[in-house]
């Protein structure tokens, strides 16, 4: 289980209810089960929480959750924790047929497990109330909460061009006479933007090749199996020692076919999925960048509005208008909002910088592990192949010397 390594706390099995010991919070997502009728079937997962933290009611809790629940949690976090890189969710499946394949379910389960554990091990995110709700509430309540709030807080795909989502935006660009949305363009940030976008391209390419490699392993496995069968049949035609050797060759071939399928699965779960996860993480960063852009724009707009208001006030003051007082009050409000917007923006910037460091560290660890698993798997496969063939050699020698 990944939970132990994700959590900075100690391994599970500690004394519960004793926060003076190492505090821990470990979660596992297990036992995917297909529920519902044929029209509306879905997969549910068991989420098991083990903790000694006082904010949790039970030291061990098991709840049943489905993908939409995870989605709900993700969206709530994205709403409330702007500036943080929210751990990514696995994609929604669009192809009906694929939705219940064993492979899909397995990879999704693994990804959901990673998601929830990353949330639990993030210094800020794990304090979230929504996380507690997710981990503790019974299924009925969870469903109610989810259906109530889904849609309202549903996050649209991150898009830097998307401007008018924010409810706080009072003034439109058109009114202000601006044609282009305000964009942050410090050289540092430009560099970061460029990095993130190009990184996504590189990673997507790497992931594509990883996907292909998994497929190739499967294909090689299949052809080894077919070849083995054919050679065995050929051997049965031969008879005598030659026939026996053919039969051996065929058997070995079939054996190796199985090993190749295993390695294909290993590559999928421990190499391709981490790469996919990497890509998703980058996309999550892009979402944060969109939030940052919004915050920046708001800040700019409000600052602009405040300036205009000030000019307005001075005008009114000169005119000794009765609207002066009102205007002054409005001005004060706007000023507060503007400062708030500025704070929000600067907070996002600060958080992003911290998160980036964390991100880089995390990804180095993740990729290191992925490379390790890849290399281990390939080395084992090669050794298995060598062993299998080496095994046959003496029989071949015996056959050729006797002929």
């Amino acid at each position, binding site marked *: 289980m990944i939970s132990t390594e994700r959590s900075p706390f100690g391994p599970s099995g500690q004394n519960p209810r004793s926060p003076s010991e190492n505090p821990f919070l470990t979660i596992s997502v297990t036992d995917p089960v297909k529920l519902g009728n044929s029209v509306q079937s879905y997969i549910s997962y068991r989420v098991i929480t083990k903790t000694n933290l006082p904010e949790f009611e039970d030291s061990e809790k098991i709840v049943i959750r489905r993908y939409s629940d995870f989605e709900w949690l993700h969206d709530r976090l994205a709403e409330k924790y702007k500036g943080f890189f929210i751990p990514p969710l696995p994609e929604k499946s669009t192809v009906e047929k694929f939705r219940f394949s064993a492979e899909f379910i397995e990879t999704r389960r693994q990804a959901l497990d990673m998601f929830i554990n990353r949330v639990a091990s993030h210094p800020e995110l794990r304090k979230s109330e929504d996380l507690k709700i997710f981990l503790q509430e019974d299924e009925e309540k969870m469903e109610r909460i989810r259906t109530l709030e889904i849609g309202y807080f549903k996050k649209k795909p991150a898009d830097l061009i998307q401007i008018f989502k924010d409810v706080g935006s009072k003034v439109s660009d058109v009114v202000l006479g601006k044609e282009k949305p305000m964009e942050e363009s410090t050289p540092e940030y430009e560099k970061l933007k460029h990095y993130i976008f190009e990184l996504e391209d*590189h990673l997507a390419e790497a992931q594509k090749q990883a996907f292909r490699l998994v497929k190739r392993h499967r*294909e*090689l496995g299949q052809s080894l199996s077919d*070849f083995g069968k054919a050679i065995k049949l050929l051997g049965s035609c031969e008879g005598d020692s030659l026939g026996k050797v053919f039969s051996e060759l065929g058997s070995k071939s079939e054996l190796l076919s199985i090993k190749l399928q295993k390695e294909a699965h290993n590559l999928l779960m421990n190499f391709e999925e981490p790469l996919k996860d990497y890509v998703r993480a980058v996309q999550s960063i892009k979402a944060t960048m969109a939030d940052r852009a919004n915050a920046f724009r708001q800040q700019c707009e409000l600052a602009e509005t405040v300036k205009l208001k000030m000019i307005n006030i001075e005008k009114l003051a000169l005119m000794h208008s009765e609207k002066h007082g009102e205007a002054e009050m409005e001005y004060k409000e706007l000023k507060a909002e503007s400062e708030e917007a500025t704070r929000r923006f600067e907070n996002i910037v600060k958080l992003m910088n911290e998160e980036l460091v964390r991100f*880089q560290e995390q990804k180095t660890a993740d990729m*290191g592990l992925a490379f*390790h698993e890849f290399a281990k798997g390939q*080395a084992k496969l090669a050794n298995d192949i060598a062993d299998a063939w080496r095994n046959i050699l003496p029989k071949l020698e015996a056959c050729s010397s006797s002929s």
Partner: protein
Amino acid sequence: MMAAVNHVDFDPPSPRPPPPTMDELETLALDDDDDDDDDDDDSFSPHLLSTVPVAIDSGDPLLRPCPPSSSSSSSLSSSPTAASVAVFESQNGVGGGRGRSGAAAAAATPPSPSRAAVATEFVGIVVSEPEKAHDPTASLMSGSSTFVTYLITARAAGGGGEFRVRRRFRDVVALADRLAEAYRGLFVPARPDKSVVEGQVMQKHEFVEQRRAAIERYLRRLAAHPAIGRSEELRAFLRAPGRLSLPPLVNEIAAKPIAKESGAAKPMGKGGRDLFRMFRELKQSVVNDWGGRVSAPEVDEDKEFLERKAKLQEWEKQLSSSSQQAETLAKAQQNIGETMGNLGLAFMKLGKFETEETTCSSQRIRAAEIKKFATAALKASRLNRGFNANIVKYLDTLHEYLGVMLAIHNAFADRSSALLTVQTLSSDLFSLEARAEKLEAASSKTFSLDRTRSHKIEELKETIKITEDAKSCALREYERIKENNRSELERFDKERHRDFIAMMKGFVICQVAAIYNPQTEKKEKIGYSEKMANVWATVAEETNGYARGK
């Protein structure tokens, strides 16, 4: 068989001895040749008549007069016998083919007595330097007048010199056709395909290269065949420059009376059958199918043969499927290597990118790990390429033997058609004799001098005589082909056993024990799989730290 008999164009240096007896023809001398490759000591003797195994120099006793004391049979190969054999038998004779020109040569000078210490006469056949040539005699109407010629070089085994000729594909086809006619019953390697639209694709460089390689393979196979490798036809092809002229075929005398009867010269079809004969044999085969059995003392042997044939067919089926799967396997192996390479490239690019954009230490570390991984992936991909070349080479044996099966089919077909000829002639004889009987019975009843009738009876008797001779010839031919089949099957069994073991050994060894590295020109001590394992074991070692969390 042939209406138009090609006369043998030489003068027998001595009067014809009595024709060889059935017994002598029935057995074929087996040749003990040294084969430096393996223990296979079965090779096909060109030697038709001797009943005693004779060590043969350069494989052709008919070219060279053997000392009369070396054989108990009076019909042992000396040029006169060769001549008679030629006359009597065979464009189909293994020895016969050589007999004609051999006899002629013997009349003049015997060929160089190079002792064939090796099994093959020609080694190191190379086909190269395709060149465009122009046929000045071809009219504009007769299709393309340009063609490609290939330089064919061969060396004589035992250091007898080098031969260089230029041939076009048409010559190869001619050689192949001739061999098919001359060596019925042997497993004659199949020639490279003709392309239907020869004129159009000829300009393509690829096509020419493909053809060049195919011709080379074909000639090498011919040279490797114990009988064909030493044949006159191959010699003429490889050694005589200028226009290709193959030694002429001699047709069965048996063909003559039939042609006379029909009163017209029929053109010689492929395999030397004329249409007329073909129809008769078709009718005969129908008769046979309907139960009109020709008494065959060879039925017992046939059963054995039929069993063998059935087994062979089953084997061929499995061989074909194995060959297909081997191809798929090789392709899958190649694909995995390619994708590994692409993966390596993608990560290399990622690594370079991370290095350029590095802002923190963890990024730097990761960039380094990525590059190490990418390097390993590229190495693995390269290893795979070398391995794949070996795989293809070894598994190609399966494919080669599909070609051999084709030759076997042809050899079996030769046998069937020879049997059919015998059966046709038998039934001809039967009906002729019946007719003769009827006529004689009728003429004995009347005492009048019926000139026409007696003349008819005379003619009929003559025809019967000729038909009997033809039938004997055909029977001898059939027996000869049967023997060819038998000995070739023996050779096939041995060679197949040897080749398939070599194939499997090669396939296994290159994965495990040793690969031949063309760059270092040495056999390396560890095989592909072990190398691969090492490449990745190193990476696994170096990244061990990341696994500690688990």
